[in-house]
C-alpha cells in the first residue's frame, strides 16, 4: 500500500458549511433509517383524526364546524410535540463515538448541533404538511387561502425551532434519551393542553383561564388561527415571535455552554 497519506491540508469548513454538512448527515440518516419518522408522522395523524372525531360532535355540535376551529390548533400542537425528539435524538447521538470524532475536528464546535436542528426543521415541516393535508382532505377550508396557510406554517415551525433549543439543552443535561423524552413531555403536556387548542378558554374556570391566557402556546394558536383565517393583526403575530426570541435567548447560549463543558 502506498501513499495513503496526503499532505495537503485544506482550510476546514467554516461555520455555515460545517452546519450544512451536518444537516446533510441528518438527511442521510433519515434515508437509511426512515423509521425515525414514525413519531413525526404518527403524532400529527393521530391527533388530527382523534380530536376531530372524538370531540367534534361533543364540543362543537358538528365535526365539520369543530374542524374549522381545531385544525390550526392541531397544527401548532403536533409540531410543538414533535420538537421533543430533537433533544432525544441529540442525547442518543452524543453517546456515540461518532460525536467524539466530530468534536475533535477543527470545525466550529456547535456545528453538529446546529446541523441537526436544520435537519429537524425539515421534520417539523413534514409534520405540519401532514396536519394540513389531512385537514384539507377532511373538509377544512382556510379563509386565509394558501398565503395564510404558508404564513401560519412558517410561524409554527419558527416557534418550534426556538423551542427545540430547550430540549437540546435537556438533551445535553440529562443522562439518557428516555429521560429527555419523559422530562420533555411532562413539561409540554400541561403547556399544550392548558391552552386554547381544544376549547375556548371562556369555558374554563377562572384561574385556569388565567394560565391559558398567559400561555405562549395559546398565543401561538391564536396567531395560527388568525393567519389561516386571514384576519391576523400585528400584535397577534408578534406575541409568539417574542416568545420564540425569548426561548432562543435563554436556551441557545445555555446549550453552547453545556456543550463546551461536556
Amino acid at each position, binding site marked *: *500500500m*502506498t*501513499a*495513503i*497519506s*496526503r*499532505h*495537503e*491540508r*485544506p*482550510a*476546514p*469548513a467554516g461555520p455555515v*458549511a*460545517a452546519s450544512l*454538512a451536518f444537516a*446533510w*448527515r441528518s438527511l*442521510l*440518516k433519515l434515508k*437509511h*433509517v426512515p423509521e425515525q419518522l414514525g413519531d413525526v408522522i404518527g403524532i400529527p395523524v393521530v391527533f388530527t383524526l382523534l380530536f376531530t372525531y372524538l370531540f367534534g360532535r361533543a364540543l362543537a355540535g358538528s365535526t365539520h364546524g369543530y374542524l374549522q376551529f381545531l385544525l390550526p390548533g392541531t397544527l401548532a400542537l403536533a409540531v410543538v410535540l414533535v420538537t421533543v425528539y430533537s433533544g432525544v435524538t441529540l442525547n442518543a447521538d452524543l453517546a*456515540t*463515538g*461518532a460525536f*467524539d*470524532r*466530530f*468534536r*475533535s*475536528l*477543527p*470545525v466550529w464546535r456547535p*456545528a453538529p448541533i446546529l446541523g441537526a436542528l436544520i435537519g429537524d426543521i425539515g421534520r417539523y415541516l413534514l409534520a405540519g404538511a401532514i396536519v394540513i393535508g389531512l385537514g384539507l382532505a377532511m373538509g377544512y377550508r382556510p379563509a386565509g387561502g394558501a398565503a395564510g396557510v404558508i404564513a401560519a406554517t412558517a410561524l409554527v415551525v419558527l416557534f418550534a425551532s426556538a423551542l427545540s433549543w430547550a430540549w437540546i439543552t435537556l438533551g445535553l443535561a440529562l443522562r439518557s434519551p428516555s429521560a429527555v423524552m419523559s422530562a420533555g413531555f411532562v413539561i409540554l403536556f400541561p403547556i399544550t393542553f392548558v391552552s386554547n387548542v381544544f376549547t375556548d378558554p371562556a369555558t374554563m374556570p377562572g384561574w385556569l383561564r388565567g394560565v391559558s391566557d398567559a400561555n405562549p402556546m395559546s398565543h401561538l394558536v391564536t396567531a395560527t388561527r388568525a393567519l389561516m383565517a386571514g384576519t391576523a393583526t400585528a400584535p397577534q403575530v408578534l406575541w409568539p415571535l417574542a416568545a420564540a426570541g425569548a426561548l432562543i435567548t435563554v436556551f441557545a447560549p445555555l446549550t453552547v455552554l453545556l456543550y463546551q*463543558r461536556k
Partner: protein
Amino acid sequence: MITATPSIIGDLAVETDGLVKTFGATRAVDGVNLAIPRGSVYGVLGPNGAGKTTTIRILATLLRPDGGSARVLGHDVVREAAAVRRLVSLTGQFASVDADLTAEENLLLLGRLLGYSRRRARQRAGELLAAFGLTSAARHQAARLSGGMRRKLDLAASIIVAPDLLFLDEPTTGLDPGSRGALWEIVRDIVADGTTVLLTTQYLDEADKLADRIAIIDHGKVIAAGTRGELKGSAGSAGLRIRLLDPADRNRARELIADRQIIASDEPDPAVISARIPVQQRAGAPGQIAARALARLAGAGIGVSDFALGQPSLDEVFLALTGSHPAQAQPGQAQPGQAEPAPAQEAAR
C-alpha cells in the same frame, strides 16, 4: 528509532505535566507525566480502568483536565484547543464512525468538514476505501460492517487529511490475528508518511511489535516509561537456556548454576536447563551473572553445547510492575517467582 530523550519542546508531540482528571471520587488520571517524541509510535499500556482513554480524550481536547498541563505539538490543550484540533485526529476506543451512514458517506462527510470540495472529497474517499480494501463495502451502512472492517474505516476516517498526531485508542481490541496484522501494517504506513502515533493497548505484543517507546500506566499514573529495551531492563527476569553435551551432567550442572541470583530448573528436554535471572539486582546485569554461571560449569568440566540469554518479555515487566495480568496473557505464562509486584519504577521522562 529514537533513543535519546529529546529536550527541545518543539521536538515533542506530546508533553504532559502532572495531568489530573477526576470523576467524582475516581481519580481516573492522577498526575500523568509523558514526553512523546515526534515521528514514532508511542504505546500506552495499562490494564482496564488505568486511565488510558481518559488521557487520550484530554489530549484530543475532548475533556478538560482538572489539574496539570498538556501540550500537544507545542499547543496547550486547554488554551489553544482549536490549534490542537487542526493537527490531531482521533480513532476512539468505541467505533467513531456513524453507524447509520454508509462507509463512503462517513468519509464524504468528514472530507467536507475538513474542507475538501465535493469532488475532492469523493476522490479522497474512493482512494482511502481502495487503500483499506473497503471498496466493495463502500455502500454498506457502517453498522453492517464486520468489526475489523469498521476499525479500518475508522482509521481511514482519521487520515482523510494526514494528521501530525494520530490517537488510536485500542485499535485492535476484538480483532482476529489477521485483521490485527493488517491494521498494524496500515499504522506503520501512516507513520512512514510522517505521522506520530499515540496508541493505547492492552496487548503487550501489540506494544512490542508497533511501539518504539512505551509508557505503562496503572491507577492513573505512569509507572514506567522508556524504550522497549529500557523497560525490559527495568523489571522482570531474563531467561537463560543452557543445552548440555551430556544429559547425565544435568543434576550437577543445575546445582552449580543455582545461587542467590539464579533460579534454575529442568526443561522437558533432558539436556536442557533453564534459569531465570531477575534483572534488578546488585550482583550485576543478567549477562554478567550468566557468564559467571557458565564459567562455573566450565570449571567443573561440564560441556555446554549452546546457550541463549533472553530479555524478559514485556508481559513479565507488565506483571511485575502492575501486579496484574494484561488482557491477553495466559495464566501459564507467568512465573510464580515473579508474582509479587516489584517497587514501581519511575523511569518516566
